[in-house]
């Protein structure tokens, strides 16, 4: 560690103001505070809410997504060999994993290189530190993409997400939409034929076997996806890199909840909302839409519901800030996600759209929660004081 510290200390004067490499100073700064806890800490202001600094919080999230990432890599290989008619026993664990690793690694590299490049450029231009938000975003983006998304499309989406989703609002902490979901939404609407449907999900798929996702099957009029519940729970189904395994995501959720990084209120209410809507559809029933009869827990197992609920909806920047608001926010995400899945035939996956929609509404929810609280207190105060009129 001392060598690293010394390295940064030696580097500092070289990029000081006025020197030749000044244009690199925010880059050095960024790596320095990535390696060490910065000496200066925030002493005041609205962003001061915890003892650990933002970079540590982000690192915990990274740790939490690792199970989903590793499993995702394995599953990419697994689906690939499966579609070529080779079983696990023939190929072996490591080769399967290695194949998936080689498929997913470029996605991560592209995501980080493009995203951090833009982030560093903006930090330099605006003269502030590099924000650490992209550490997590850059990891989440490959996880919510199909494994064979073309790299140039991914690069475009990342650039779009970082610039339009984040930097124009002032960078990390000022964005009102989750940047990772902005990237996915960009891909989804820009290249729909390559993002959804049954032709894309398995890397290098052999023609003989169709690789429809569970959601895709439901959209085309299935009564239940043909994957077993156990497979869907463990994650041996086609889908985006990180979204398939409920187990891996639950491990991540546990890490986030134990460390207190993510809000349990949001997670819980997303599931409650989704279940409530699923049950409502079961009760309503429909002769034309078989989807409505699907047991509600299938919604948690299919597609990105789980991943969205754990890693996307709980984003501290774009979710509601008040406790009561968090319940409303989560509930509405769950309800909207299932509603979009079942009722709207154009969008097989509703989670992304539901979270983005509620991201937009989160400040409004907070506003009403705070407002009602103010009114309540004002009323109480009035009762005690006997009617001062001029309180707001």
């Amino acid at each position, binding site marked *: 560690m001392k060598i690293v510290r010394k390295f940064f200390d030696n580097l500092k004067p070289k990029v000081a103001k006025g020197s030749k490499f000044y244009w690199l100073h925010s880059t050095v700064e960024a790596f320095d505070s990535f390696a060490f806890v910065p000496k200066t800490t925030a002493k005041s202001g609205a962003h001061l809410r915890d003892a650990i600094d933002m970079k540590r919080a982000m690192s915990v999230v990274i740790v939490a997504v690792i199970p989903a990432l590793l499993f995702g890599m394995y599953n990419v290989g697994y689906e690939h060999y499966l579609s070529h008619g080779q079983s696990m026993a023939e190929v072996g664990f490591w080769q399967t994993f290695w194949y998936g690793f080689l498929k997913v690694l470029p996605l991560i590299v592209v995501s980080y290189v493009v995203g951090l490049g833009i982030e560093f450029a903006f930090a330099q231009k605006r003269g502030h530190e590099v924000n650490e938000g992209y550490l997590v975003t850059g990891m989440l983006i490959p996880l919510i993409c199909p494994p064979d998304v*073309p790299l*140039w499309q991914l690069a*475009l989406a990342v650039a779009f997400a970082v610039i*339009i989703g984040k930097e*124009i609002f002032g960078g990390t902490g000022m964005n009102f939409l989750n940047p990772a979901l902005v990237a996915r939404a*960009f891909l989804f*609407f*820009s*290249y*729909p*034929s*390559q993002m959804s449907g049954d032709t894309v999900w398995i890397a290098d798929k052999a023609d003989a076997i169709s690789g429809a996702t569970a959601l895709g099957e439901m959209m085309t009029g299935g009564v239940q996806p043909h994957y077993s519940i156990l497979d869907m729970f463990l994650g041996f189904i086609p889908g985006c890199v990180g979204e398939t395994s409920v187990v891996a995501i639950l491990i991540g959720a546990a890490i986030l909840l134990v460390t207190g990084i993510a809000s349990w209120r949001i997670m819980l209410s997303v599931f409650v909302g989704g279940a409530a809507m699923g049950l409502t559809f079961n009760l309503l029933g429909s002769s034309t839409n078989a989807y409505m009869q699907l047991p509600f827990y299938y919604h948690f197992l299919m597609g990105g519901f789980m991943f969205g609920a754990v890693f996307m909806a709980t984003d501290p920047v774009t979710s509601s800030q008040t406790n009561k608001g968090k319940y409303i926010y989560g509930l509405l995400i769950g309800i909207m996600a299932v509603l979009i899945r079942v009722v709207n035939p154009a969008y097989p996956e509703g989670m992304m759209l539901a979270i983005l929609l509620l991201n937009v509404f989160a400040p409004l929810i907070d506003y009403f929660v705070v407002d009602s609280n103010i009114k309540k207190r004002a009323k109480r105060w009035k009762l005690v004081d006997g009617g001062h009129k001029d309180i707001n």
Partner: protein
Amino acid sequence: MNKQNKEPWFSAKNLKLIKNPLSKENPITVQVLGICSTLAVTAKMQPAIVMALGVTVVVAMSNLLCSLLRNTIPSRIRIIVQLVIVSLLVIIVDQILKAFVYEISKQLSVFVSLIVTNCIVMGRIEAFALSNKPVPSFIDGIGNGLGYGIILLVVSFIRELFGSGTLWGYNVVPQWLYEHGYSNNSLMIMPPMALIVVGLIVWAHRSRNKELCE
């Protein structure tokens, strides 16, 4: 009309009326008028240009007519009078488009008749024509129409190039690019992307002209 000062058509003051809306007082990026039609008609260049011409004609003529009538219109009912004038002009434009460029007018569909509600038209009448002489009003209308047109041109250029791979209806993205995995961006054809492109133009515009920043 009082005839005391005869300004030449292209005096410095009148030229300014044309130049300012192109950049410093652009109806779209600075006055933020007429956004609706900007989002709706800019997916392809041809309809965008035709639309821009239509709006230019309507703004210029309605400015001229309202300016001529400005001392006779009772101010309490002026909006309704302006609407009648504008609708008359829009119907004429609509008929001309249907007669000569039928295909494009079909693409523009309802947005031609919606020029009536284009904020630029009413905005310029209220803000300029009612308090200025006919000639400057006419020139102001031309200027604002062109200012609107130039943004439409830029936005539709970007959207057609990346959204459909064509320009003015001709293929410009070479076939080998498609064969190497390039594909058109269908988000570009959707109106939300037009809003984002306009936003980016506003961004670029304001970082060049610092005095425009609020």
